[in-house]
């Protein structure tokens, strides 16, 4: 009975929790989606093409666009000079004299940096004209390796800053030094996390129009937020935020964080429209997207643990160096600080030392990529846990069990400030072992090994933060600087529920979905609150900053939807329900509290027979305001702004609760390495989650599978490669390999549900866990397959066949010796 989920629930049942098929799908399957490049534009809209730097680091001594301007159909060429005249550099979250403009001014600092924009009558003509722009570059020495870039003798990217290290902060919680001094063992790991990306199949699109009379700009784009960046864009354009109208179309072709990085191009296209005197549309192509859009932050980490004989970790010491690329573009250095409060992961470790340095290199600026900060942290932390087991000769499962935050200890305050809201990590682990069939896997490993094959099992335990504290980034400042700047905190979500003149319900949300199915889930949530069916609810996920309720945290990131946005929609629907109950109570002859909403009807609890239809009850608010009870406003439209109470600003000791909720995932991977080819065959992959209350299990599993595929790509295939001269080597999908259906196995998925006490529906995020857990879980399995002799630092992502072959050869040499 596959259609059960679509049927009306029994009177006690809820729509939330059912694997409802998506309302989005019919239009998308029929090819009738409206993505950004499909949205209507005004007649006369011009096309933009972007000239990008071929050099990683160079001084621009001359730009001459005369030949380009003389070409057919070309209407304008925008360069750094225009940008200097009409905009300001983007603000940076560390106080440094670094000037980042939407187009290069005088100097280019990464291959792919935008240098000029051609505006022409169509895209083909605009691209033709790019070749006619003459630019003279005086090459400067590039800085590619982050460790080298941090050295005092490195070539400097931003002369005014005087160093490539733009932030260097140390933190101390508890007494880590004493723990290290007393520890029976110190276990250390050195790892690097590569630059990679989510590469949505739809690239960026911006349509910008400069409005006359100082009215600012109207922008349609597939930018995904966070809307805090509206402030960055408005300041750069030197206009009030209200004069930058940002709109998003009905559908978006994926983002995975990366469309956050569209904002500089929004500013560039606003300038282009101003110069051309007409609306301008830019559609990013794949080469531009790969070379110039964004990247996950590369990281070099040394992580050390103080460990007892039993594997109990008493302190951690992190030394992290982030490669943020050529500019510290907002919201960087957030890759560090999103995870700051929970740097102790799933473990009860009271003492912690952290040093975070941000270094700039001649690479594309880094930014949001699904998992944001998590893959970097867990690649170090979970490799370390594996090393503890190896070095102390323990079963890794015992190391987890002995260190987990105990089951009864939630909400649990981690030393750096995370308030882990709920969970039962030990129970998830046991469930995961059953789901994976770990005894069977161990038997398979023994059999494979005795036959001389390379078979390994890896584990990873990760805490998945969701609903980011908008104040976490201020943890990069010293407490004194923070006090001066004023506190920042919270994670405001907004939703509007309106009932129209025929009783129809429309919901607007601030989540800028990129394909996850928010409209379906919101319909389930609101249907429950109002006693309707999801089919009755119209959900509007288009966004218009002029008309919708939104605040700084709006957008599609930090897995904020289920906990925050759906929660706000639930609260807004409850408000409408309260108002309708007051309006209908008189006619139903009961107190408002006794009005029941069920199956499209309202009735008094004591008299189910005397029901009023929902539409009839709602109609009064529109058609007969005179009949409204005393004090009741006409109309039925409620907007709720909700922020989690638990998100305070960082305190005077640099403790910060970086996210409102923290889910948990435990992964098990068993794989075999082919000695001859270095390729990896995943024998089994099991991923077990606790994301609080699950709103739609089919969509939740869809998030897990998608995150898993991306995690697998990060583990085995994906990397933005730069040549020593800084040129970019990953400019196509033939060079930047992402997993196809041939590489992605089906993971075994299981769930436990420990509702969050801090969100309206008890939900937490689920979409980023596997981006955090899967790369390191696979790496741990590879390390296990290669045996204890393998150099732990040589397990470097992505584990391509050539890297693995080299390690197989090294272990074979060791054995033969």
């Amino acid at each position, binding site marked *: 009975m596959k259609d059960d989920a679509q049927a009306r629930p029994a009177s006690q049942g809820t729509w939330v929790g059912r694997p409802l098929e998506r309302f989005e799908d019919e239009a998308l*399957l*029929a090819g009738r989606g409206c993505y950004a490049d499909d949205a209507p534009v005004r007649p006369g809209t011009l096309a933009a093409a972007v000239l990008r730097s071929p050099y990683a680091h160079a001084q621009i001594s001359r730009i001459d666009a005369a030949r380009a301007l003389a070409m057919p159909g070309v209407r304008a060429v925008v360069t750094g000079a225009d940008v200097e005249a009409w905009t300001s550099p983007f603000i940076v979250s560390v106080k440094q004299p670094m000037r980042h403009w939407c187009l290069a001014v005088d100097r280019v600092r990464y291959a792919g940096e935008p240098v000029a924009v051609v505006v022409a009558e169509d895209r083909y003509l605009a691209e033709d004209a790019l070749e006619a722009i003459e630019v003279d570059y005086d090459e400067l020495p590039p800085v590619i390796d982050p460790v080298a870039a941090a050295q005092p003798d490195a070539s400097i990217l931003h002369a005014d800053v005087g160093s490539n290290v733009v932030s260097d902060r140390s933190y101390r919680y508890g007494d880590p030094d004493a723990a290290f001094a007393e520890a029976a063992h110190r276990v250390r790991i050195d790892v690097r996390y590569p630059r990679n990306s989510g590469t949505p199949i739809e690239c960026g699109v911006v349509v910008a129009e400069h409005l006359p009379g100082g009215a600012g700009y109207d922008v349609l784009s597939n930018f995904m937020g966070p809307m805090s960046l509206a402030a960055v864009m408005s300041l750069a354009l030197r206009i009030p935020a209200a004069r930058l109208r940002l709109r998003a179309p009905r559908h978006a*072709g994926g983002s995975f964080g990366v469309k956050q990085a569209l904002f500089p191009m929004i500013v560039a296209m606003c300038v282009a429209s101003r110069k051309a005197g007409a609306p301008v549309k830019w559609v990013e192509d794949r080469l531009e997207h790969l070379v110039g859009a964004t990247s996950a932050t590369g990281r070099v980490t040394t992580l050390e643990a103080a460990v007892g004989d039993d594997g109990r970790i008493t302190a951690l010491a992190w030394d992290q160096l982030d490669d943020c690329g050529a500019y510290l573009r907002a919201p960087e250095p957030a890759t560090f600080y999103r995870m700051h409060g929970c740097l102790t992961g799933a473990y009860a470790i009271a003492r912690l030392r952290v040093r975070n340095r941000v270094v700039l290199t001649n690479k594309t600026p880094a930014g949001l990529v699904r998992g944001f900060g998590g893959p970097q942290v867990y690649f170090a932390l979970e490799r370390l846990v594996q090393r503890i087991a190896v070095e102390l000769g323990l079963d890794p499962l015992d190391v987890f069990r002995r260190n987990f935050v105990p089951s009864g200890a939630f909400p649990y305050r981690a030393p750096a400030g995370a308030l882990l809201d709920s969970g039962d990590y030990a129970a998830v682990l046991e469930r995961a072992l059953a789901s994976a069939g770990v005894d069977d896997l161990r038997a398979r490993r023994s059999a494979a090994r005795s036959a001389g094959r390379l078979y390994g099992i890896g584990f990873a335990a990760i805490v998945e933060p969701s609903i980011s504290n908008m104040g976490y980034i201020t943890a990069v400042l010293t407490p004194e600087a923070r006090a001066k700047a004023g506190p920042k905190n919270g994670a405001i979500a907004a939703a509007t529920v309106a009932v129209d003149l025929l009783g129809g319900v429309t919901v607007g949300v601030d989540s800028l979905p990129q394909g996850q199915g928010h409209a379906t889930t919101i319909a389930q949530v609101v249907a429950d609150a109002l006693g309707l069916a999801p089919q009755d609810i119209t959900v509007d996920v288009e966004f218009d900053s002029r008309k919708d309720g939104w605040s700084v945290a709006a957008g599609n990131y930090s897995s904020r939807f289920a906990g925050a946005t759906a929660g706000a929609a639930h609260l807004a629907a409850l408000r409408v329900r309260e108002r309708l109950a007051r309006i209908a109570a008189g006619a139903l002859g009961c107190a408002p509290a006794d009005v029941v909403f069920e199956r499209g009807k309202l009735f008094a609890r004591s008299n189910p027979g005397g029901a009023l239809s929902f539409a009839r009850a709602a109609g009064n608010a529109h058609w007969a305001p005179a009949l409204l009870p005393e004090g009741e406003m006409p109309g039925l439209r409620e907007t709720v702004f909700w922020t989690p109470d638990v998100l305070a600003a960082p305190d005077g000791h640099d403790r910060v609760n970086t996210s409102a909720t923290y889910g948990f995932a435990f992964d098990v991977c068993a794989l075999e390495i082919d000695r001859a080819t270095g390729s990896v065959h995943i024998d089994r992959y099991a991923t077990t989650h606790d994301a609080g209350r699950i709103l739609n299990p089919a969509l939740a599993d869809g998030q897990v599978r998608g995150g898993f595929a991306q995690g697998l790509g990060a583990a085995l295939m994906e990397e933005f490669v730069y040549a020593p001269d800084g040129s970019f080597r990953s400019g196509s999908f033939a060079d930047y390999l992402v997993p196809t259906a041939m590489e992605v196995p089906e993971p075994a998925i299981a769930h436990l549900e420990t509702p969050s006490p801090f969100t309206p529906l008890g939900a937490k995020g689920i979409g980023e866990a596997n981006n955090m857990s899967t790369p390191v879980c696979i790496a741990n399995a590879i390390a296990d397959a290669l045996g204890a002799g393998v150099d732990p630092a040589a397990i470097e992502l992505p584990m391509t066949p050539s890297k693995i072959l080299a390690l197989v050869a090294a272990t074979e040499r060791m054995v033969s010796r």
Partner: protein
Amino acid sequence: MRRYSRGEQHRVEVVLDGRSREGRCESRMLLSDFLRHVLGATGVHVGCEHGVCGACTVIVDGVAQRSCLALAVAADGRDVRTVHGLARDDVLSDLQQAFRRHHALQCGFCTPGILMSATDFLARNPAPTEQAVREMLSGHLCRCTGYTGIVAAILDVAALRRERGGTQAA
């Protein structure tokens, strides 16, 4: 052989999803751009413009091909089928319905191309193995789904069509 000169507009006539359509374009215009921007078939998606992602796949004279690798003028006089032609009278085809049932799409950007390849594939392979489906899909990139639902949907439709005696082959 017909000669084309740069800058000149050419008339291109195709049978698009069963209807005769024509438009004008330069000789260098890609078929994907022609279908989208000249004929308005915006269900044809463009994800890479270099022949790897498969989002732009359409069926030309019965064979699935990437419209970003073809010129519009080369399609003159041909039969072109896109995602717009799969549903009949606003009822989704069995394949489209299976995609919805199996949650085989999230953002839906890769989906039109995959639907066209799968349509072509199932017409040739009524009883495919999972391995064969995955090999066919390896010509497409999906960043959202991990492919599980897509594979399941295609296998499900193949089985359903076999049960019904193949009468529904789209």
